[in-house]
């Protein structure tokens, strides 16, 4: 057995003379902790890899977790960026944190350009590309930019080509507050199952996250004009 390992090592050294062998416990890359203990435990090396591309299948809590990760990074004194390729971020739920940059590009190409530009700057720990699916050489360019800038690049999409870590998540069970009639009134929590896959790595975890509802401003009297939110002095 030991002979075959030695032979294999010799062969690798011959084929890849510049390669440096990793010794016990060494990590291939630094990682960006998500700040969610349960999730960090199932990620290879305890976080999203810096300088690499990770892909997270859309929906099922991906936005919630990655946005929390962005805020966690900002709280740690670093920067993160969110590229909202399909312009679905609702302003009412976005926190203007100083080190968190929200980019709302006009088109898919603009989104990719913005991602490349910000990744190359080297000033970001995490860049989330949402709503835009890079293809073919675009992925190559983005991964190269991520490697140059040392940022963890997460694409919320389905194309797992060149991805170092592949993540999927699913919303499992909601806990509801119910009306006196037993109808669902408000979802309070939901259990998320996150599955992380990488080369030689397959793990999953479940954890609950709360559900945020927007502040409903209901009209109490249908006959009355609802002028809330309108500037004073407008109308009659």
């Amino acid at each position, binding site marked *: 057995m030991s002979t075959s390992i030695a032979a294999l090592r010799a062969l690798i050294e011959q084929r890849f003379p510049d390669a440096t062998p990793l010794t016990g416990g060494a990590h291939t890359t630094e990682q960006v902790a998500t700040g*969610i203990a349960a999730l960090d435990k199932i990620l290879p090396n305890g976080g999203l890899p810096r300088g690499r591309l990770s892909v997270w299948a*859309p*929906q*099922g*809590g*991906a*936005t*919630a977790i990655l*946005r*929390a990760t962005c*805020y966690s990074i*900002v*709280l740690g*004194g*670093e920067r993160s960026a969110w590229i909202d390729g*399909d*312009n*679905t971020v*609702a*302003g*009412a*739920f976005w*926190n*203007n*944190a*100083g*080190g968190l940059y929200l980019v709302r*590009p*006009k088109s898919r190409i*603009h989104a990719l*350009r913005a991602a490349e*530009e910000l990744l190359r*700057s080297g*000033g*970001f720990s995490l860049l989330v590309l949402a709503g835009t699916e890079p293809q073919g050489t675009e992925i190559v360019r983005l991964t190269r930019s991520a490697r140059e800038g040392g940022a963890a690049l997460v694409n919320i999409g389905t194309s797992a080509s060149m991805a170092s870590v592949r993540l999927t998540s*699913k*919303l*499992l069970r*909601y806990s*509801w507050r119910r009306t006196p*009639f037993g*109808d*669902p*009134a408000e*979802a309070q929590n*939901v259990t998320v199952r996150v599955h992380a896959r990488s080369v030689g790595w397959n793990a999953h975890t479940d954890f609950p*996250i*709360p*559900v*945020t509802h*927007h502040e*409903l*401003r*209901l*009209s109490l009297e*249908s006959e009355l004009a*609802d002028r*809330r*939110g309108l500037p004073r002095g407008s*109308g009659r």
Partner: protein
Amino acid sequence: MLRIAADYGFDDAHAGVAMTPVAAEVAATQSTASLVVVKLGQDAPFIAPYPLAVLSPPEHLAALVNGLGIETCGAFAALDAEAIEVRLGIDGVRLWRRARADDERWLFRIPLRSLPSASLEWVEYGLKDPERLLFVINSLAGTVCTSLVNRGERAREMALVFSLGNRTQRTHLIRSSRPSAEQKRWMRLVREALDTLTLPDAVMGVTLRVESVTGNVGPQGDLFDRGFASAPAVEDAVIQLTDDQGDVIVEPVNSEHPLLELRTTWAGRGVRAGMNAQRAQIPRYARDDKKGARDDRRIARDEKPALTLQLLPSPKVVTVDTQPRRDHEVPVRYMENNEWHDIVEAAGPDRVSGGQWNAEYSREYFRCVREDGMMVWLFHGSQQQTTDWFLHGWWD
């Protein structure tokens, strides 16, 4: 000043100090003392005993005044302004005002500020090739930017002036999101400007002129902060992005509008982005302002993940099957992109109406959980006078 003049060998230098240039001039030139200080408000009495010649009147005026028998400044100043104007004209009035120590001239003129510029002209031929034009402008930009760097300034705006073959000039202003003295940045902006510019004739000369500048100052950063080292790089990237794509780095400005899609307007962070980056440089422990503390509390709250609503840019019409639930109908499945999604739970309706005085709306919102776990936001109601069902967003 007298000491300095003496050091340079001017031993008979005289100086006069007064509130008006004319009094100071007379004090310096007519007195025998090396330094004469005219007391505050005594400029006119000081000049009064001196002959009118000290005011250097024009020759024709000097002869006229002499003919009238007026010898001193005081005697001339005592005359009536109207009489002077009628008899001696505007030159007489000017002399009369100086004789009264009424002098509006500046003691020291503020020098006109010259901003860097460079130009090149040629007469033998006209340039029509944009690449050659860029080559020339690149050279001019090098000169201008070097000059800016030497002066410790950064340009905010430059003017590109083309002298054309039809003897006209075309000026194009180029503005950078952030003041800069970098040739590379200005050339990128010039290149973009040339891409969209159409000139009516061949170019016979180009001038690149700085229009406005700012000082080369920057805030003090914290060397121990993790974001400090990369702040300039981020700022550069943000500026480049803003220059290329406009205000795409945004932050929401929320109102209290009942309709969520109308509640937010997006404001560009373009210029402020740099400031925010600098704010990110400030370590948390060093932030003592209330707003900073409030920001941190809010970020700490958002650090924990929560499902939030994602909005479609505009509500999308969907086909919905409903079933009755007491006094209302609830959706049980909907079709999007030719695919039916079964709904297992539906909370609602949340009724929103208003806009009677402008665009009237009335909606019944449902928060529906699909069989795959996704929670979607459907509404039914009058959207542009229709009673369709719409998919407005989802929780993610």
